[in-house]
């Protein structure tokens, strides 16, 4: 986190509704301006996360996504518009974010996150946010964030259901809750089963709120708690979870001490040639 000593008059005005809050104040706003957040995925979740963090004054936002904007994304991915179809998502995202807040520093990672590049990217940020759309990336980002000692704000969605939690290294991780990934085909993707367009807005804004709390060191983040939302019944519940002493990553005798092959771990093989037709990773 960079130290920002002063704000311009425009910044003081722009962030006045933050600065007036005792829990944020000038000190907190300058913390946000000096902080950096990595968002994995510029899709349904990544869109509201990035937008709210950008306008909240988070100084640097990194975005990882290798995909291009598809018409079927526009039902929920509010970073992108009709005119962006076919463009790399990271470029569309950067343009949208800068139109909201030109002071923002946006760093683009126009590539999939992999075991080869994750430890070059993740350690450079203060907080990591997961808006990935597949289990391989979800476990990879979980493991890499823990190994890099970075707080991770996780979120996931499907149909009307959403889940969110904040993993502070040493206080539990995604593997403590779900030690094993489901076998391929057991849990469908949004492309296969669908997702309500407003749902990533609900989970993504919760993730953005968590990031801001973690950066400011205020309140009680969803550490040791898993929020699950059923939007159909509008049932919100918070489940108490805990660090699993037998967790292969963050338990007392870890077996995962470096990044692994997550395609093999999840039992999938991603073809090296992009399949023709509806992109299944465009969520």
């Amino acid at each position, binding site marked *: 986190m960079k130290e920002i000593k002063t704000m311009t008059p425009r910044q003081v005005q722009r962030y006045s509704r933050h600065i007036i809050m005792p829990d944020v104040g000038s000190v907190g706003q300058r913390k946000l301006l000096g902080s950096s957040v990595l968002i994995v995925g510029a899709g349904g979740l990544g869109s509201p996360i990035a937008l709210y963090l950008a306008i909240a004054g988070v100084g640097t936002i990194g975005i990882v996504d290798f995909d291009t904007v598809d018409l079927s994304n526009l039902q929920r991915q509010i970073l992108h518009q009709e005119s962006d179809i076919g463009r790399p998502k990271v470029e569309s995202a950067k343009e949208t974010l800068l139109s909201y807040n030109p002071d923002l520093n946006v760093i683009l990672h126009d590539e999939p996150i992999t075991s080869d590049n994750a430890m070059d990217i993740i350690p450079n940020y203060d907080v990591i946010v997961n808006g990935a759309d597949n289990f391989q990336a979800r476990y990879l980002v979980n493991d890499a964030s823990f190994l890099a000692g970075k707080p991770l704000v996780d*979120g996931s969605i499907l149909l009307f259901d959403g889940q969110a939690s904040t993993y502070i290294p040493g206080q539990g991780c995604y593997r403590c809750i779900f030690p094993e990934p489901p076998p391929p085909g057991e*849990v469908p993707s949004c492309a296969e089963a669908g997702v309500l367009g407003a749902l990533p807005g609900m989970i993504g804004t919760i993730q953005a709120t968590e990031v801001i709390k973690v950066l400011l060191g205020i309140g009680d983040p969803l550490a040791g708690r898993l929020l699950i939302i059923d939007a159909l019944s509008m049932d919100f*519940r918070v*489940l108490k979870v805990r660090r699993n002493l037998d967790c292969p990553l963050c338990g007392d005798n870890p077996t995962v001490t470096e990044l692994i092959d997550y395609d093999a771990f999840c039992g999938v093989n991603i073809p090296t040639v992009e399949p023709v037709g509806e992109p299944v990773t465009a969520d």
Partner: protein
Amino acid sequence: MKIVIKLFAGLRDRAGTGDLFIELPSGATVKDAIDTAQHNAPKEWTAPTSLMAAINNEYVGFNAVLSDGDELALIPPVSGG
């Protein structure tokens, strides 16, 4: 003893309901409850291999013992983004 099982995400569709009321012998575990619930739903369903269980909103392992009146929540992971 009687317990209620709450099913989340894809499990609701599999079982055809989100709420299952089942009767179990005392000393029954989460695993026993799942085994019984699979045959006591509108649709015969199979519990997924990746699943989180919570008794009264608190994470538990599958060997945790249930008590009369408990609510057992079964939550599969979702991974859309």
